[in-house]
Structure formats: structure tokens, C-alpha cells
């Protein structure tokens, strides 16, 4: 084993990168729940979490502890092995999918090894990603079946049928992107989107020259929301009719694992939408002298955030807030200065634009949840089979035609 490590320092670097990514991902998951509750609350003219820590910032931690110490109930008729397998599968698979996402173009040195942002860079990246995410249906179906209760069974069945239907539209809708990029490698798909039309419009696949992938993106994002079982497609857990759907019989952290899996999938899907249709880490602004100051946009945003935190922290009601928020603000200010330094500034551009776009998609997820009512089940199936499938097929034909004609 030690021989293996000595011969392949690549593996050591990989382990460190995986540890850092996992830590960041889990933190992001936790704060995504906080973010969602805050945004939905403000959409509904409420304040959202406010008690646990300043602005409810400790809410994810409180939730986690609560889940951990809740009574762990396993219903009497449950098939124990499958009952435990379901949340395990859901969480581990959705945490694995993130390994394929490239976060930036830059390379950095770690123990003398040049390495890039992202765990694995596969030739068949997109295919592999779909393979992992489509296994997610097992978690839901097994959870519904193994509980030996009627509501979970109905929820699990509905969910399997739904995920299976929308997966079709999902796989078909990205064929347009594959036609334009001619590669399954996620880095190459991003690289193929470089450049600008007429000097100002980014050549991202959503605006690409022979055939803009507007239909493709609409199908992709709709199907992706359905795949992750989010509103308005959250039929598997429709509270009004199915109590909580497939995870009705789950308690304590097993229940939370389904949620963590759902939020991890949301992040993966947002990353994928960014990579496939919105140019990944590419900046939306052309590299011209008049826009050279754009490279300090991350710094400016962080500085603004830090100023707001300090200003808000001073006026905060509780003593904890008066201390924590300004300290957080100072940390952000330090970070802002750090990423303005020449070396760091170049490196940060790619990840900044990538994460900014991912954040916008996550916001849209929450926004949609706060705005739209739930579909009826027959409507849901009709949208998947009668609208998205033919639309994505039409997109394939149109895109391939546009490419052949454009070649002349």
C-alpha cells in the first residue's frame, strides 16, 4: 500500500482534493437548506429561520443535531436490509456525481504534482454522470417498497415512473449539445463554447451560432427539476395526498439523508446546466480593454458583502450577532483582498464565474418552488411524454440540420 502511494503521488493529491471537495459540498448542502428556507420565507413575506444564531446561520447545525438525536424508528413490517440500503444509496450516489464536475480551467501545484480543479476528468464524463444520477431512482423505489406501508409504496411507485419518464427527456435534450461539441468530456464541452458572436454575445450553447440550444435547455432544466423530485414536480412527496411520500416511514438521520441526497443532486444538476448550456467557467464579458476592470468583480462583490455584514452586525439585536457578523465581514474583506492579488486573481476567474452561474440556477430552483403550484399526476406524465420528448427530438433534428447546412 505504501509502495503504491510512493509510486503514485497522484493518489495522495486525489485524496486531499476529495477531502476538501467533500467538506465544501457538505457545507454547501447544509447552507443550501438555510438559503432555501430564507428565500422561500421572503417570497411569502416571512422572516424564515432567525433564532439559531444571527440570521439563523446556525440553523443547519441545529437541524443536524436534532436529526442525530431523534428516535430511530424502523417500522415492524419493513424489509430491514433494503430499508437501510435506500438512504445509503441515495446519499452516496448523489455525493459521487460531483466528482466529475470541473470547477475551473486553472491548474495548481500540490506536493509537486500539477493538478486541476475537479476530481476526475473522463473522456465519457457526461455519460458517466448520467449513469450515476440515473441510479438515484433505486433509492426512491427501494425506500417506498421496503417500508411496508401504503403511502411510501404509492410515493415510490409514482416517483419511479416520474423519474424514468423524465430521464428520457433529459438524455435526449443534451444530444444537441453533444452535436455542437462533439465530445463527452465536460472540459472539452466547455472549451468548445469559447469566443463571442459579433464581438459581444458569448458563444455558449444556449446562444450558439448554427442552432441556439434554447429548446434543449428548456427541456433539460424542466426534466432536471423533475428528476430531482423538486416542486412543481414533487409528486412523490405530495404532502396533501401521500403524507410524505416515499420517506414517510423514515426517521432521524435516515430521513435527513434523503434530503441531503436531494440537495446534492440539485447542486450537480445546476453544475451540469452551467457546463452544458452556459459556458461553464467562461466569463460572459469579452476580453477587451474597456472591460478589464471586470476581473475585480469577485473582489468588489465580496467587499460589498463584507461591508454589509459589518454594518448589519453593529445594529444586530443579539450580542452574538454583534460579534459574529462583523467578524465574518472582516474575514470576507480579507478574502476580497486575497483574490485581488495578481496570481490569485487569474486563478479565481474561472471558479468565480462557474460558481456564480451555479448559484443562479440554485436560486431559480428555490424561486420556482416558492412560485409554482404542484402538477396533477396525469399532467405530469403528459408533460414528460407528450411535450418534452417530442420537443427534444425536434431539437436533435433541427440542430443536426443546422450543423450540416452551416458547414457549406
Amino acid at each position, binding site marked *: 500500500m505504501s509502495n503504491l502511494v510512493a509510486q503514485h503521488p497522484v493518489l495522495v493529491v486525489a485524496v486531499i482534493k476529495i477531502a476538501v471537495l467533500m467538506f465544501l459540498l457538505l457545507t454547501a448542502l447544509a447552507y443550501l437548506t438555510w438559503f432555501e428556507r430564507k428565500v422561500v420565507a421572503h417570497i411569502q413575506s416571512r422572516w424564515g429561520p432567525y433564532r439559531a444564531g444571527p440570521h439563523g446561520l446556525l440553523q443547519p447545525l441545529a437541524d443536524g443535531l436534532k436529526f442525530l438525536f431523534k428516535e430511530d424508528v424502523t417500522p415492524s413490517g419493513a424489509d430491514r436490509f433494503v430499508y437501510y440500503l435506500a438512504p445509503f444509496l441515495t446519499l452516496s450516489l448523489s455525493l459521487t456525481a460531483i466528482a466529475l464536475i470541473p470547477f475551473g480551467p486553472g491548474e495548481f501545484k500540490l506536493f509537486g504534482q500539477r493538478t486541476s480543479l475537479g476530481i476526475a476528468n473522463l473522456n465519457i464524463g457526461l455519460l458517466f454522470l448520467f449513469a450515476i444520477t440515473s441510479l438515484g431512482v433505486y433509492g426512491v423505489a427501494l425506500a417506498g417498497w421496503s417500508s*411496508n406501508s401504503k403511502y411510501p409504496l404509492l410515493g415510490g411507485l409514482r416517483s419511479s415512473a416520474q423519474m424514468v419518464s423524465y430521464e428520457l427527456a433529459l438524455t435526449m435534450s443534451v444530444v444537441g449539445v453533444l452535436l455542437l461539441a*462533439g465530445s463527452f468530456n465536460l472540459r472539452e464541452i466547455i472549451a468548445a463554447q469559447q469566443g463571442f458572436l459579433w464581438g459581444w454575445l458569448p458563444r455558449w450553447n444556449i446562444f450558439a451560432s448554427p442552432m441556439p440550444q434554447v429548446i434543449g435547455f428548456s427541456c433539460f432544466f424542466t426534466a432536471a427539476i423533475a428528476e430531482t423530485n423538486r416542486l412543481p414536480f414533487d409528486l412523490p412527496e405530495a404532502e396533501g395526498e401521500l403524507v410524505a411520500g416515499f420517506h414517510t416511514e423514515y426517521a432521524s438521520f435516515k430521513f435527513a439523508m434523503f434530503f441531503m441526497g436531494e440537495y446534492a443532486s440539485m447542486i450537480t444538476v445546476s453544475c451540469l446546466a452551467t457546463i452544458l448550456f452556459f459556458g461553464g467557467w467562461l466569463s460572459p464579458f469579452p476580453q477587451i480593454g474597456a472591460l478589464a476592470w471586470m476581473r475585480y468583480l469577485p473582489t468588489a462583490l465580496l467587499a460589498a458583502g463584507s461591508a454589509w455584514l459589518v454594518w448589519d452586525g453593529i445594529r444586530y439585536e443579539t450580542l452574538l450577532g454583534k460579534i459574529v457578523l462583523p467578524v465574518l465581514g472582516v474575514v470576507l474583506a480579507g478574502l476580497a483582498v486575497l483574490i485581488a492579488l495578481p496570481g490569485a486573481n487569474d486563478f479565481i476567474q474561472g471558479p468565480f464565474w462557474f460558481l456564480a452561474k451555479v448559484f443562479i440556477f440554485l436560486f431559480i430552483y428555490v424561486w420556482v418552488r416558492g412560485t409554482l403550484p404542484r402538477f396533477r399526476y396525469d399532467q405530469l406524465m403528459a408533460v414528460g411524454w407528450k411535450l418534452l420528448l417530442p420537443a427534444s427530438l425536434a431539437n436533435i433534428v433541427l440542430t443536426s440540420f443546422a450543423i450540416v447546412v452551416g458547414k457549406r
Partner: protein
Amino acid sequence: MSGDYLQNYAPLLIHLLVAMGLAGIILLLSTIVGYHRPTRAKLQPYECGVRPTGDAREPFSVKFYLVAMVFILFDVEAIFLYPWAYIYRDLHWFGFVEMLLYILILLAGYIYLWKKGALDWNR
């Protein structure tokens, strides 16, 4: 080539193991730390407080099987589109016409399904 494989797939395998380990630890922790005070009523399947009637493992609507079957058909066809898209730029008009024929055949099956009502949930 083998070095390339190691560089790309080994980290993925490690990542998968880490993710599974993490999920396993969480699962184990919640069974150890969470308290257990089972009663007969608590362990019953949840049915909104009413005493549960019958078994949940009963035959369910055949429509779900239909959806699964149609999915298999179309998904296999969708997978054929992937390698085609990969080499499309080398195929030009030949590739376009061939795929158009393929999609037309697929479309014929799709229209047949629609007319038969396999896509209508309420039938």
C-alpha cells in the same frame, strides 16, 4: 494509456468509497446515538393514526409497468443517438439522412403509442 486510466479513474473510485463511507458512518451514527424506545403502536406502518388495514405489499396498477416498458424502449433508442452525435461532424449529410430515418422509425412507434393511449394516464 494505463497511467492515464489510473489518473482519471482511481480518484473516482476513491471518491465513491469516501462517499459510501460517509453515508455508512452517518447511518451507523444515527442508529447508535438516536434513542430507541419502541412500542407496538409506534412500529406500526403510518396510516394517519387509524389502525392499519391489510398489507402494503399488494398488486398495484399495471400502468406503472407500461411506463417502465415504454421507457426501456425509448431509452435504448436514445443511447444510439449518443455515439452518432459524437462522430456527427465526420458524417455530414450521410449521418443526417441516416439519423433522420432512424428518428422517423422511432417517431412511428411513438405515434402508435400515443394513438393506442399508452401515454394517457387517465385512460
